[in-house]
C-alpha cells in the first residue's frame, strides 16, 4: 500500500480513578496507510474508542496518555502544543461519533455546525466555507440540502444526522476519518445506506478511514485491514479476508462465530463468549483472554504471549493459535455454545449488554 499516514507506537492511556489505575489502552501499536480503511473490533470496553480519542488527544478526565508515540506525517501528536493540537483536530484527522442524536448541538443550525468546522481552520475562506456546506450535504446525499442547512438537528432524522456528522468530518478534507461505531445507533436499513456512503466517499476522496466497531459484518464490507483488540491490547491483526478465513486468535474466532451468517446454512450454533471482559484495574496474569478461552493451556495462565507473525501480514498474540487446535476441540467449543437455560441464567446474573455475547 501507500505511505504510512498515522503510526501509533506503544500507546498507553490510563484512567486514574479512585478504584485504581484503569489501563484502557495498554501498549497498542498500529498504523494506517494513506487512503486505507482499517477496522478496529472488540467488545465494549476493550479500548477501541479510547485508542481513537487518544489519537485526537480527547481522552476524557481522569484519563491520560501515559506513554507512547502517535506519529502523524512524521510529527508526534502527543507533543503538540495547544494550538497545534487544535489545528490538527478536524483538519488532519476528523472523527464521527456513535450517537448522532446527541453528537450535534441541539440549539445551533446544522449548516452552521458544519461551516464552523471549516472556519475553525484556514483551509477555506469564510465565504467558501458557506457555499461548501451545501456541497458537503449533497455529497453525503442529504436531500434538499439548500434548505436543510437552515434546519436544526431535531428536524433531522437519525440517519440524516449521521450524514451531517460525516459531512462535518469531511469538511476540511482530512486525510484520516475516524468513525466510532457510526451505525450502531441507527436502524438496519439506514445502517446499510451509511455504510454504502462511507465506502463511496473513501473511494472518491481517498480519505483513509479508521472504523471502530463491534460489528464484524461492517468490517467485512468496509475494511481492508482489521485490528482485533481485547482488554486494551491488540490480539490479532491482518487483512480482512485472511482474518475472516483463518482467524488465529481464539478471541477473533469467537467474535466471528458469534455473528449469524446469512450466506451459510446454519450448521452450527452461534457461539457466545463465556464470561465478561476483565476488570482493567486488575487484569488476569498471563494472556488476558485465558479465563474465557475455550482452548486455554497452562502456559496461557502465567505467560503473556507477544504479537507474532502467523501468516503473511497477519500477527496474533496467542500460544495456541487456531490452526493448532484439534478439530474435536473446535467442535466441542461450538457445541458448548450455551444451552437456552444456561443463557437465561447468565443473563439474569450479568448486566444485559455485556453479559453474554461479543458484539453483533
Amino acid at each position, binding site marked *: 500500500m501507500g505511505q504510512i499516514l498515522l503510526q501509533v507506537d506503544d500507546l498507553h492511556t490510563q484512567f486514574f480513578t479512585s478504584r485504581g489505575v484503569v489501563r484502557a489502552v495498554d501498549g497498542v501499536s498500529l498504523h494506517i496507510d494513506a487512503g486505507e480503511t482499517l477496522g478496529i473490533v472488540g467488545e465494549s470496553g476493550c479500548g477501541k474508542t479510547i485508542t481513537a480519542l487518544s489519537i*485526537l488527544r*480527547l481522552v*476524557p478526565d481522569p484519563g491520560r496518555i501515559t506513554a507512547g508515540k502517535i506519529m502523524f506525517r512524521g510529527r508526534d501528536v502527543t507533543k503538540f502544543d495547544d494550538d497545534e493540537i*487544535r*489545528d*490538527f*483536530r*478536524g*483538519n488532519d484527522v*476528523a*472523527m464521527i*461519533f456513535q*450517537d448522532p442524536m*446527541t*453528537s*450535534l*448541538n*441541539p*440549539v*445551533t443550525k446544522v449548516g452552521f455546525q458544519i461551516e*464552523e*468546522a471549516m472556519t*475553525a*481552520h484556514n483551509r477555506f475562506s469564510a465565504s467558501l466555507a458557506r457555499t461548501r456546506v451545501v456541497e458537503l450535504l449533497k455529497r453525503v446525499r442529504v436531500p434538499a440540502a439548500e434548505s436543510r442547512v437552515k434546519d*436544526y438537528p*431535531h428536524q433531522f432524522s437519525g440517519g440524516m444526522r449521521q450524514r451531517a*456528522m460525516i459531512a*462535518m468530518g469531511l469538511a476540511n478534507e482530512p486525510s484520516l476519518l475516524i468513525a466510532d461505531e457510526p451505525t450502531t445507533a441507527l436502524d438496519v436499513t439506514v445502517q446499510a445506506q451509511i455504510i454504502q456512503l462511507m465506502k463511496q466517499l473513501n473511494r472518491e476522496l481517498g480519505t483513509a478511514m479508521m472504523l471502530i466497531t463491534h460489528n464484524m459484518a461492517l468490517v467485512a464490507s468496509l475494511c481492508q485491514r482489521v485490528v482485533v483488540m481485547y482488554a486494551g491490547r491488540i490480539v490479532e491483526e491482518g487483512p480482512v479476508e485472511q482474518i475472516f478465513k483463518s482467524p488465529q486468535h481464539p478471541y477473533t474466532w469467537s467474535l466471528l462465530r458469534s455473528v449469524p451468517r446469512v450466506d451459510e446454512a446454519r450448521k452450527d450454533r452461534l457461539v457466545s463468549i463465556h464470561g465478561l471482559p476483565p476488570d482493567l484495574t486488575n487484569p488476569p496474569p498471563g494472556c488476558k483472554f485465558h479465563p474465557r478461552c475455550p482452548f486455554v493451556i497452562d502456559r496461557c495462565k502465567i505467560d503473556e504471549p507477544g504479537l507474532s507473525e502467523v501468516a503473511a501480514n497477519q500477527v496474533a498474540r496467542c500460544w495456541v493459535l487456531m490452526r493448532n487446535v484439534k478439530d474435536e476441540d473446535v467442535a466441542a467449543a461450538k457445541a458448548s455454545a450455551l444451552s437456552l437455560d444456561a443463557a437465561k441464567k447468565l443473563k439474569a446474573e450479568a448486566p444485559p449488554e455485556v453479559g453474554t455475547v461479543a458484539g453483533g
Partner: protein
Amino acid sequence: MTNLAIYIIRRLLWMIPVLFFVIVITFGLMHLAPGGPWDREGRQLSPQVVNNLNVKYGLDKPLPQQFLTYIWGVVHFDFGDSLKSPGQHVSDRILQSWPYTFTLGAVAFILLVPIGIGLGVIAALRQNSLLDYTALGLATAAASTPNFVVGIFLIIVFALGMNKLTDGNFYFPTGGMPQPFNPFQVELIMPVITLAALPTAYIARLTRSSTLDTLRQDFVRTAWAKGLKSRLVVMRHVLKNSLIPVVTALGPTFAFLITGSFITETLFSIPGIGRAFVTSIAGRDYTMILGTTILFAVLIALVNLVVDVLYVFIDPRVRLTD
C-alpha cells in the same frame, strides 16, 4: 411571527380566568381567617361604630354579594378603598409603594444575573479548583443564611461599625430609600445585597451544575473534535445550552424580587409593597390584601409569559402551541 402574536394574545386572555380564581381563593381564605379589619388591641370600638363602618364599606352584605360587588369593581379597575387608611384608594397605595419595591428588586436583579451566572460558569469551567471551591462555598453560605441575618450583619458592620471607626465620616446609610425609580442611591447598597444574596447563590449553583452537565455532552466533544478554539466551544456550544434552564429559573426569581420582601423592606425602612402586603394581612385590610394579591398574580403571570416567549428565541426545539 403572527403565530407568536396569537400565542401572546391567547396567553394574556388566559390570565382572566387565572385572576378570577386567584380572587376567589384569596377572598375565601381572607374571610375564613378569624378577626376583622375593625379589631383593635386593647379597647375595642363600640358595636355601634363597627356596625356603621360595616355599612359604609358594604361588609354588612352577605359574602356572595360582597364578592360580586368586588368583581364588578375590578372589571372597572376600581379596587376599592383601603379599610385601614380611610379615604385612600387601594390603587393609589399600591402605586405609592410599589415603585420602591420595583426599584430595589430591579437593581438586585440586574446585579444578580451577571454575578450569579458569571460565578457559576467560572466555577464549572475550573471545576475542583480553588476558584470553584471558593465560589461554591460563598454560594452555599449565601444560600443558607436567612436574609434577616445578612441584613442585620450588614447594618452592624457597614453602618454602625464603620460609622464608629471613621467617626461618622464614612458609612452606609440605613435610612430607607429617599426616592423611588432612582437606581443610583447609596441607600440601596445594603438592601440590594440583603435581597439578592440568596437568589444570586441559587442562580450561581444552578449555572454551575447545568454547565458541568453540558460540558459532558457528546456535542461538546464534537465541538472539540472539530478543532474549535476553546472560547468558541464554551460560548457557542456549552453556554448556549447550559443557560437554558438558568433562564427558566430567572423568571420566577425576577417575580420574587419585584414583589417585595417584608424582611428587607422592614430592616431598611423602605416604604415598599412587601411591607404593605404583610401589614394589610395582619390588619385584615381586605381590599388591600386583594389588590396586592392581584398585582402579584399579574406580575408573575407576565414574567412567566416573557420567559415562555424568550424560550422560542433561545431554544429552537420549543414550539409555541396550545
